[in-house]
C-alpha cells in the first residue's frame, strides 16, 4: 500500500509534465479530432485519409486567415468513456479550438454532452443518430453526415413506389437499428397505409446467427425486406440469404449498403437490385467531385470510400467555420457556423441554423454486379434539404437552449 502511493505520486508528476508540454503556438490553429481508429479501422482509415487531404489543401491555400491548420487526432477505442478522456485531453492540454470526429452514435452523444458542459464547439462527423441534433441536441454541437431520418426518408421515397405490401425488417439490435426501423416504418406507413409489417428480426450487432434469421424471415413470406445490418453482419446475411434464396423475387431496401465500405467486401456475392443509400464514386461526374477524386487518388493511390468524403468535408467545414469566425471563441464559432454554406464534393451544403444539421445528402440507387464486384447503378443524388421535417416539427423535437 505504501509503495502504491509513492508510485501514484511519481506517476502524477510524470503525467503533469506531459500536460504542459503542448501549449498552442501562435501562428497555428489546432483542431481536436476523435475517432474509433483501433476498433473500426475499415471505416476510419479512409476517413483519416480524407481529413489528411483536407488539411493539406487548406494549408496549401494559405491556412486559416494566414494561420496554419493543425489536426490533433486521438483514438477512442470504441468506448464513450475513453472518448470523453480524449476530448478532455484535447481541450485541456492541447488547447484545440474545436472538437471534431466520432463514428458511433453513443460516442458522438458522449462527446456532444461533454462539449455542451465545457462550452466547446463540436462538429460531429459520422454519427447517424437523430438524437444528436434533435432530442439531445445542444447549441455547441453540429453534425455533418445525413442523419438516420434523412436516409430513411430518401429510401422511403423509392420504397413507397414498390408494389410490395408485406414487409419484414432485419436490423441490428441497438439504437441505430431500432431508430432506423422506427423512422422507416413511420414514414412508410404515412405514404402507404395499406402496408403490413409481417416480421422483424433483431440480431445482436456483430453477432448475427444468419441462418436462423434468414429462415425466420423467409417463413413470414414477405414481399419486401428492409435491411439495416452492415459490415460483417451484412456479409453473413447476404451469403445465407443468397444460398437459401431469401432475396429471390423479393424487393430489398437497405440502409448504407451502397457505401464502398460495406459493398466492396461482398465481392461477387453482391445481391442485385437492392435499393440502397451509398456513394458510387465511380459514377459521379460533377466538377466538385472530380477535383476531390483526382486529388485523393493522386495522394493515396487508392479510391475513396464514403468515410473519405466525410473526413475530408469535416475538416473543410471546420476550416470554413474558423475562417469566417476569425476567432476561436466558441460563441463566435457557433454564430459563424449557423447558416454557413460551403462547397463540398457532393455540391453546396449548409449548416442549418435551426438544428445544426448539415444539408449534405446521399446517393440513392440500386446494387448491381459488374466484373465480379458490387456497384451502385442508376444513382441519383438526394439533397439533404429535401428530406428533413418541417421547421415547426424540428422545433418540437429539439430542446430549447
Amino acid at each position: 500500500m505504501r509503495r502504491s502511493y509513492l508510485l501514484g505520486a511519481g506517476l502524477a508528476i510524470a503525467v503533469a509534465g506531459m500536460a504542459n508540454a503542448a501549449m498552442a503556438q501562435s501562428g497555428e490553429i489546432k483542431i481536436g479530432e476523435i475517432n474509433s481508429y483501433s476498433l473500426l479501422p475499415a471505416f476510419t482509415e479512409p476517413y483519416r485519409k480524407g481529413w489528411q487531404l483536407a488539411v493539406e489543401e487548406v494549408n496549401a491555400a494559405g491556412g486559416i486567415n494566414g494561420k496554419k491548420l493543425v489536426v490533433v487526432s486521438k483514438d477512442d477505442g470504441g468506448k464513450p468513456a475513453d472518448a470523453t478522456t480524449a476530448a478532455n485531453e484535447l481541450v485541456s492540454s492541447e488547447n484545440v479550438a474545436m472538437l471534431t470526429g466520432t463514428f458511433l452514435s453513443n460516442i458522438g452523444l458522449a462527446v456532444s454532452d461533454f462539449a455542451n458542459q465545457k462550452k466547446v464547439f463540436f462538429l460531429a462527423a459520422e454519427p447517424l443518430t437523430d438524437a444528436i441534433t434533435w432530442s439531445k441536441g445542444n447549441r455547441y454541437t453540429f453534425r455533418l453526415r445525413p442523419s438516420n431520418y434523412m436516409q430513411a426518408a430518401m429510401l422511403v421515397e423509392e420504397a413507397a413506389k414498390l408494389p410490395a405490401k408485406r414487409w419484414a425488417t432485419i436490423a441490428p439490435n441497438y439504437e441505430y437499428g431500432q431508430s432506423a426501423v422506427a423512422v422507416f416504418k413511420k414514414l412508410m406507413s404515412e405514404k402507404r397505409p395499406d402496408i403490413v409489417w409481417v416480421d422483424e428480426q433483431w440480431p445482436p450487432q456483430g453477432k448475427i446467427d444468419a441462418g436462423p434469421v434468414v429462415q425466420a424471415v423467409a417463413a413470414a413470406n414477405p414481399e419486401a425486406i428492409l435491411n439495416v445490418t452492415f459490415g460483417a453482419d451484412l456479409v453473413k446475411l447476404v451469403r445465407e440469404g443468397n444460398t437459401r434464396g431469401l432475396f429471390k423475387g423479393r424487393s430489398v431496401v437497405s440502409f448504407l449498403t451502397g457505401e464502398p465500405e460495406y459493398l466492396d467486401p461482398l465481392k461477387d456475392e453482391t445481391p442485385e437490385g437492392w435499393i440502397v443509400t451509398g456513394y458510387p464514386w465511380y459514377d459521379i461526374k460533377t466538377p466538385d467531385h472530380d477535383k476531390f477524386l483526382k486529388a485523393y487518388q493522386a495522394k493515396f493511390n487508392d479510391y475513396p470510400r464514403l468515410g473519405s468524403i466525410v473526413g475530408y468535408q469535416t475538416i473543410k467545414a471546420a476550416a470554413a467555420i474558423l475562417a469566417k469566425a476569425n476567432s476561436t471563441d466558441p460563441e463566435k464559432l457557433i454564430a459563424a457556423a449557423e447558416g454557413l454554406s460551403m462547397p463540398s464534393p457532393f455540391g453546396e451544403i449548409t449548416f442549418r441554423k435551426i438544428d445544426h444539421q448539415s444539408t449534405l445528402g446521399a446517393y440513392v440507387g440500386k446494387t448491381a454486379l459488374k466484373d465480379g464486384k458490387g456497384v451502385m447503378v442508376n444513382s441519383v443524388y438526394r439533397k439533404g434539404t429535401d428530406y428533413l421535417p418541417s421547421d415547426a416539427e424540428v422545433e418540437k423535437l429539439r430542446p430549447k437552449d
Partner: protein
Amino acid sequence: MAFYFVQFLTGLASAASLFLVASGLSIIFGVTRIVNFAHGAFYMLGAYVAFTLTERFSGALGFWGGIVVAALVVAVVGVIVEMVLLRRIYHAPELFQLLATFGLTLMVEDLVVLIWGPDDLLGRRAPGFKGAVDFFGQNIPTYDLFLIAISPIVLGGLWLLFQRTRWGVLVRAATQDRDMVAALGVNQKWLFTSVFALGVFLAALGGALQIPRDAVHHALDLRIIVDVFVVVVIGGLGSIIGAFVAAVLVSELNAFGILIFPKISIILVFLVMAVVLIVRPWGLFGKPEAAARRTPGLSVNPWRPLTTNERWLAIAGLAVAAMLPLFAGNYALTVGSEIAIFVIFAASLHFLMSVGGLASFGHAAYFGLGAYGVAFLAKMAGLPMIVSLLVGPLLGLVGAAIFGFFAVQLSGVYFAMLTLAFAQIVWSIAFQWVTVTGGDNGILGVWPEKWAAGPASFYWLSLGIAAIAVAILRVIVFSPFGFALRATRDSLLRSEAIGINGKRVQWTAFVIAGTVAGFAGALFAYLKGSVFPDSLGISLSVDALVMVLLGGVETVSGAVVGAIVFKALNIWLVSQTDLSKLVLGGFVVLIVVAFPKGIVGVLETIRNRRKSSTSESSSKSSLATSRIETAE
C-alpha cells in the same frame, strides 16, 4: 412442419462451429487448468490463415488442404506460445494464466490488422458445397449439411482418441488428478504442450471452416470467446460430450427463440447458463470438483497489518498524491481522478478474489449499477450530488445481494461464470430498456455540482474516497470477519466445522465488494458526465481482473498498484498510438513473465527473502512455508 425441421438443421449447423471451438477450450482447461482467453484469437487466426491459403491455392484440394493446413499452422503457433510463455507460469496463482492469454489476445487483434489490413475479407465458398438442397420448398445450404456432419465426426474422433490411445488415457487421468499423474512419472511438460496444441488446432479448424459463410475480420475473436466459455460451462468443464450437448442446446434455443422473441439472441446464452448453473452447479455433464488439495489462495508470506512506520509512509504517500493539483494541469487531474476511481473498483474485486477466493468475472455489474443509480437519482429524481453519491451505489448493493446469493452457492470457475451471466443479464437490461436507461445511447448530463466540478476538487474527492475505501477494506481483512472469510477460502469444510457459516460469510463479502464497486461507478458517472451500458460490460470486468492479477492476487492491497499501472498505461497508450492494444498486450505478457506473482507479489517476495537472510526466526518460517510448497 418442413420449416421447423429446416430451422432445426440450421441450428445444428450453428452449433458445429461453437462445438469445435468449445471442445478445444474444454480439453485445455481440463488438463492444464488454464482459462485460455486467447482461444478466440486462435479461432480468428485460423480464419485469417485459411483465407490466405484458400485464396492462394484454388480448386478442391487447395480449399480443403488450405483449411487443414491453416489449422495446423495455428496449432504450431499455439505450441510456441505454450512453450515460450505458459510453461513459465504454470506455478503462478490460479487464473494468472488468464492474464497472459488476455495480453496475447490484445496483441493478436492489432497484429491481424497490420498483416491482413483493416477491411472485412470474403473467403471462397467451399468447392462442391456452394448451393442448397430443396426440402419441401425450404432451402438447406449444402455447407450446413457438411457442418452438421463434421461435429459428430470430430466428437467421435476425440472419443476414440481419449478412450483408445495411451495419450488419451493420460489426458483423462490428468483431467481428474494431475498431481497424481505427475507423481507416477508422466512427463507433464509434453502432455500439456500436446493438449494445448490439440485444443488450438480445434479452435483454428472451427475458424477456418467459417470462411465460406462469414466475413474474416479483426473482431471475430471477441464475438466467439464469451459464447464458447458459456458453452463449455453449461456442458460441464472438461466434458467433451457436455460441450457438444450445450452447443446444440444453445444454438437450437436461439434458432427457435428468435421466432417468438426476435430480440432474444443478445442474452440467450447467458440466460441458459444462469438457469443451468443454478439448477446444476457443475454444468450438465460436469462432476462436482473434488475437494481441492491445493489451498487456492494460500499465501507464502502470511498477511499482516501495516506497521506504524508503514502507516505513516502510506499517509505521506497519500499527502504527496493530494498535492498533485499544485503542479498538474486539468487533464492530468482528470486522469488522476479516473485512476483513483479504478483503484476503488480494483480494490473491491481484489477483496473478493484474494480474501474470499471468489474470482468474479462480472464485477462490472456492480460498478455499472452504481453509475446508473447515480444517473437515475441525479437526472430523474433531481437529487443533489452528495445524496446521489451516497445513495446511488446502493443499487450496486442490491444487485450484489441478489446475484451474490446465487453465486456463492458455487465455487471456482462456475462461480466466475455465473457472475458473468448475471453481469450480462444486467447489461442487456440496460441495453434494451430504452425508455428508462436510454439504451446504448445512455444517460447524458450527469455532471458534478459546482463545488466538485473543478478538476482539482473532483480529484480530491475521488482520492479521498479511494483512500477511505482501501483503508476500510484493509480493516475488514484484519477483522474477525476477514479471518472467517479467509478460513472459508482456505478450507470450506474445516471452517464450517468450527462453526463459521461459510455461505453467509461469502455472501456478505460479495455484498461488501459490490457496494464498494458501486461507489467507484457512482464517481465514474460524475467524472464522465454520462452513463452507458459499457460500464456494465464484459471488457470492464476483464479490465478489473487484469488489474487485480497485475498487482498480485496473493497480496493484501496489490490491486492498488495494479490499477494505477494498468489504467495509467492504458490511458497514455490510447492517447499516443492507434496500436495501443498491441503495446499494452505486449506489456502485459512481459509483466506476466517478469512478475509471475504480480507486481506487488514479487516485490514482497524479494523483501521477505532479504529479511529472512538477516533474521533467524523468519528463516525458520520460510523453511516451513517452503515445505508446504513442496508438499503441494
